[in-house]
């Protein structure tokens, strides 16, 4: 199952500057696992040691928020990784 993942600006250092990368997996957990294999360290910036989404990160599948990693991802979906920004 392939999808598109849009990466928050503060995490672009992991994706060589790319704001949009391809992902693969049938659940959010699988998609993030796939990202981690290609961009080591990126998952830990979003997910803590207890597999919870970090409180300054939000993950959306298309326009709906995903609150846990079991959320299903369908082919053609876009996973959005949103991060709290502090700049003003």
């Amino acid at each position: 199952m392939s999808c598109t993942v849009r990466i928050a600006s503060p995490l672009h250092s992991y994706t060589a500057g790319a704001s949009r990368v391809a992902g693969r997996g049938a659940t959010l957990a699988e998609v993030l696992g796939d990202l981690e294999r290609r961009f080591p360290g990126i998952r830990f910036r979003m997910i803590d040691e207890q597999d919870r989404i970090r409180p300054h990160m939000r993950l959306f599948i298309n326009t709906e928020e995903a609150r846990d990693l079991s959320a299903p991802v369908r082919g053609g979906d876009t996973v959005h990784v949103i991060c709290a920004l502090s700049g003003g």
Partner: protein
Amino acid sequence: MTLTAAERARYQRHLSLREIGAAGQEKLKAARVLIVGAGGLGSPAALYLAAAGCGTLGLVDFDRVDVSNLQRQVLFDTAGLEQPKAEAGRARLAALNPEIRVIAHALELKAANVRAVLADYDLVIDGSDRLSTRYLVNDACVLLGRPLISAAIHRFEGQLMTYVPGRGPCYRCLFPQAADGVVANCAEAGVLGVLPGVLGTLEATEAIKLITGVGTPLIGRLLTYDALELRFQEFRVERRRDCAVCGDAPTITEPRDPPRPAAQAPADGVRRLTARALEALLSPPQQAPPLIDVREPWEFDTSHLAGALNIPLGQLPQRLAEIPRGGAPVFICRSGGRSMRACQLALAAGVASPANLEGGMLGWAAEVDPTIPVA
């Protein structure tokens, strides 16, 4: 509040809009809006709200105008360098529209003063550059029942949402918790100058809509903006029943200051070095400790201490193996905050006796080498 002849002349384009008209303009005249942060976001928001005839505008900022602000903070000009932002902004807005009242609050919002400052305003716009201020303002707005329009920016991206207590989620529903230092700010990461122009103008738009009651506010909808792709996106955000401030059983019932920054907090096992103490350790060079500079590469490129290794804080968890073992490394950043977090990460990963350069490169420039440029 009736409009004077001068006001009718000034706002005639608004009066021509059926959706605003005299009734909407009178609401704008009666409105009292507080803008937190006279920076990249606050500048366009303040200018447009002043021009639009928002009757009372408050500007909160305790900083002074720096030359590096002028790339995006259009409220200020070169002649105003070094002036307090709140006062320079007040003067600019008063010159733009003498019909309105502008109040300068040259102070730092804290738990102790936030209620008193917000008490005289009906609506708040957040354009601050610290997460701790964002949470303080959000919590105060929820507790006082004030609508809050909040935007934030980073490099080429921005976010915007409108929070109206009782009508949707609050900022903590969106991001329950975040500490300063987790995300780089504009000074560390850079920002496209025109980006806050877009987001700050959208904040002013939302304020005018809420005040006049026209349109559909951005409640429960997170708007994101990617300037590089020129793409806006919208995401649905629900109120959290377990939200610490607006949830069913809130644990935050009074505004509170964040825990002290890591740089000042006691941290067992982290040594603290003043710039002078580090200078002494660097001689002779053969016995100097490893220096790990955790700033962003562009900051590092502007200047760094000889022999320093650059590992940006965001990459440190993955690059801990690059820290030489056995040498009690010294972590360095711009002012000492990021490097203290780096020390704590290193300590947790088993690095022995990490040290923090207190005051960072700014401290080094102040105490040891005033010729060194610090980005």
